């Protein structure tokens, strides 16, 4: 019974982490700009990796493996923002301009004079 509960919880956590990972990777391909791409990968760095590691912790039980997974999780959560910050600062200093939409895309697509 306890094994079944543990397996179900692990399935949910690892599956959710996988979904977040794939969503982050799709965002990395679809976003228009360096900075927005960094924003998309932060999803897979925090939620994807976090949920997967917690799911493996549930499988590992109360042991050294879980401790190692906890260290891995803490390390990822501390280093990923640092690396992203350094990347964003370097990109700004190198002259990458963030892509800015000048007018609201909703307003731009409404044809004028159609309201009769």
């Amino acid at each position, binding site marked *: 019974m306890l094994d079944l509960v543990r397996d179900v919880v692990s399935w949910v956590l690892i599956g959710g*982490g996988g979904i977040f*990972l*794939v969503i982050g990777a799709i965002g990395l391909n679809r976003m228009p700009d360096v900075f927005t791409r960094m924003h998309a*990968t932060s999803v897979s760095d925090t939620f994807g*990796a976090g949920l997967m590691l917690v799911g493996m912790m549930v499988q590992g039980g109360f042991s050294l493996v879980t401790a*190692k*997974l906890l260290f891995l999780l803490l390390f990822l959560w501390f*280093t990923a923002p640092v690396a992203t910050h350094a990347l964003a600062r370097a990109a700004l200093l190198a002259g990458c301009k963030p892509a800015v939409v000048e007018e609201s895309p909703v307003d731009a697509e409404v044809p004028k004079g159609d309201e009769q």
Partner: protein
Amino acid sequence: MFFAGLLAVLAGIGLAAARALRGPTTFDRLVAANSIGTGAILLLALLGFASGRPEFLDIGLVYALLNLVGTFAVLKFFRYGALGHEGLEEEEEERA
């Protein structure tokens, strides 16, 4: 369940590799490389659990360290052209 996770991680790594090959600037490629590094850590952990040998986690920890240091090294090399460069302090002294 570990194999489903492995499939998801592999799909993520593949998509990030596509961005790394396509990316217009160096920073795009670095973002993708960072993402691939995170995927490699998860891949190692999942592979260890799937084969019943969780000792792979130690290699994952080393990869996590290398990922951060490698990103910084490439950034510094790209900016200054050398890893032993003093950085911003020298430039500020030159300006003063």
